[in-house]
């Protein structure tokens, strides 16, 4: 009789048949798809400086791919939604600028400093990780504002005051481009590791039900902290490289809320929790943003807003999430 119930389950369950006879196949296919995606990214961005005369488009595309991917580390994999994500970006930009301009260190060292700064700030604010949901988000937003104020209170000999820092001596867009490429690769590698490793398993368990995870032996606080640190390091690096690329650092653009907003929107548009989600989301929306900006220069924010609303209402789980829901038998193949 027990057998019979099992049989009957099979009938109702659409996704069941797909799993038959595919012991380890699913994770293999998953790897394969992810490998192809990464290979495509490399193929597009690696040789570009030799062909494209419009580097900025690709540079900022990589920037958003990185931001969205690392945002996914906290939002998709650990279930946090830091509205103040821009804080790390801004701190990274300033760390780079100050180390380079004020302390005269070479750019690579300054960038390493930015990563460290991001991590240090991440550790400092780690106590807020015990807040939940929107509370966490808003407090992190307040932290970003506070961070901006702290920098503005620092002596202007160090931070350049309200004008900010101009790094024109470091101007080398192609080098900055490849630096961003390396950061992107790092983020993708970190994402791969977070998804495929045991840490990733623990994170997803926490996201699904943190208390249950704790009860089966997952040290929730320590695990979250690891993901958090990774998620704070990349925006700091991105901020630093961007500062290098534009050679201009100032408070307003370094701590512009649109940076967080776009990271969230791009990541969510693709689908949080999937590795490819932020990639697809960022490429698609960044592309749309560019088109809008080119063709409707005065309407761009309006249209961007409409696109976001439409996306959330029609595809609340993002592009990949919607696919996974609609074709649930394939979702185990989606990296």
């Amino acid at each position: 009789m027990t057998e019979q119930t099992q049989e009957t389950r099979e009938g109702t369950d659409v996704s069941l048949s797909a799993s038959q006879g595919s012991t380890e196949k699913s994770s293999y296919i998953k790897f394969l798809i992810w490998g192809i995606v990464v290979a495509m990214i490399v193929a597009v961005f690696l040789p570009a400086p030799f062909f494209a005369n419009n580097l900025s488009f690709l540079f900022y595309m990589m920037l958003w791919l990185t931001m969205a991917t690392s945002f996914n580390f906290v939002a998709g994999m650990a279930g946090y939604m830091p509205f103040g994500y821009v804080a790390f970006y801004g701190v990274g930009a300033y760390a780079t600028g100050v180390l380079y301009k004020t302390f005269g260190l070479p750019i690579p060292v300054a960038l390493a400093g930015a990563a460290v700064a991001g991590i240090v700030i991440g550790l400092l604010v780690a106590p807020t990780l015990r807040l939940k949901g929107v509370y966490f988000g808003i407090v992190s937003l307040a932290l970003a504002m506070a961070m901006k104020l702290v920098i503005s209170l620092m002596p202007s000999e160090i931070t350049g005051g309200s004008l900010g820092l101009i790094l024109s001596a470091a101007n080398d867009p192609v080098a900055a481009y490849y630096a961003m490429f390396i950061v992107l690769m790092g983020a993708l590698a970190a994402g791969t590791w977070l998804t495929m490793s045991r840490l990733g398993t623990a994170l997803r368990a926490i996201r699904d039900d943190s208390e249950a995870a704790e009860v089966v032996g997952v040290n929730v606080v320590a695990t979250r902290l690891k993901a958090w640190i990774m998620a704070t390091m990349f925006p700091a690096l991105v901020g630093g490289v961007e500062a290098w690329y534009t050679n201009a650092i100032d408070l307003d653009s370094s701590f512009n809320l649109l940076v967080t907003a776009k990271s969230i929107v791009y990541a969510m548009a693709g689908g949080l929790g999937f590795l490819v989600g932020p990639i697809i989301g960022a490429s698609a929306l960044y592309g749309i943003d560019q088109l809008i900006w080119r063709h409707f220069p005065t309407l761009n924010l309006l249209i961007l807003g409409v696109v976001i609303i439409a996306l959330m209402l029609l595809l609340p789980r993002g592009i990949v999430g919607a696919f996974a829901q609609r074709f649930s038998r394939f979702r185990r193949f989606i990296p």
Partner: protein
Amino acid sequence: QEKIKIGMTISSSGNFALASQSGVRGVEIWVDEVNANGGLDVNGEKRLVELVKRDDRSDKQMVARVYEDLIANEDVDLLMAPFGSTLTAAAATVTERLDKFMVIWSAASDALYSQGFKNIVSATQMPVSRMPSAGLEAAAALGGKKVAIVNVDEPFPAGLADGAEAIAEQHGMEVVLKEDYPKGTKDFSLLLQKARAAGADVFFPTSYEGDLISMVRQMRQMNVNFPFSFMVYASTPQFIEIGDDAQYIYSHTNFHPTINWEVDAGLDREGFLAAYEKLFPDVSYEPDFQTVLAYGAGVIAGEIIENAESLDAADLKKAAMELSDKLTVLAGPYAIDETGKQLKMPFPVVQLQPGKGLVTVWPKEVAVAEPIYPIPGWDQRD
């Protein structure tokens, strides 16, 4: 005939939207005027001018991208800068790298001109460190002793405040309060009271319009009076529109019926106003000093192009240097140093007086009315 393409960005939104949009109207007037006259005379041939406008949303990242796009994909010949020092700095790194000439109309930060940029010229905007001089000179002459300087923590206002502090001390006044406040501050009543408590008789806030409007209104709400209040943007139509509370505030401008320079390039005041009326009949505001700065920058750009051997950045810069001290446009006399920094273009002081409207009160050479000093207290007005 191939057009001369000039690229620039406008801020459709963000902090700089208002000023940026005021400015672009000036550039458009110039383009219209040039094209109506058959174009610019470049090495003997008349070429029309095309303005390629893009949006930067007041966003520095965007500026870098757009300027690159303008140069790489739109193939512009030279560029007008975006509004403000921050955006201009971002644009300059691109134009320098891609070796294009850029005419600046509204970037006043002193630091911008000490970065070693070779191909930039501030056609009409004097550096921020010198900007408060006329106002504080007037204050000192009228008997001001103690100055309270407050500024929003933004590059331009902060630069003005620093400049003001130095200039006030030069004129023997004591700076009793110098304080900044962050953007987004909504309530200024305590700040005003602090200034009053410090015993200031000269109130010198440097901020953008919105904050200044709030300050004036709250000065009245809190019954705060200063014998001399100087507000950078109090001369704009938008500020004057707020009504009676705007009376008596000192400000400065380079564009006013009573300021008439001997213009030797481009339109004079009447011509400019007529052109503005014709081109922008629907815009609710009259041209302000940003419009005039940008217009003047356009005119000077035109002169530079016509006098240059080619449209290469180096040639244009050479021509710009050669024209230094030889031109006077609507905004005033033009003179630059080799960093591209503007040396002239002074700003006379104006005051909004009951019955007379905005009148020039300082320096004496261009003054048409006596300054009303001290400013009557709120309870002494009717």
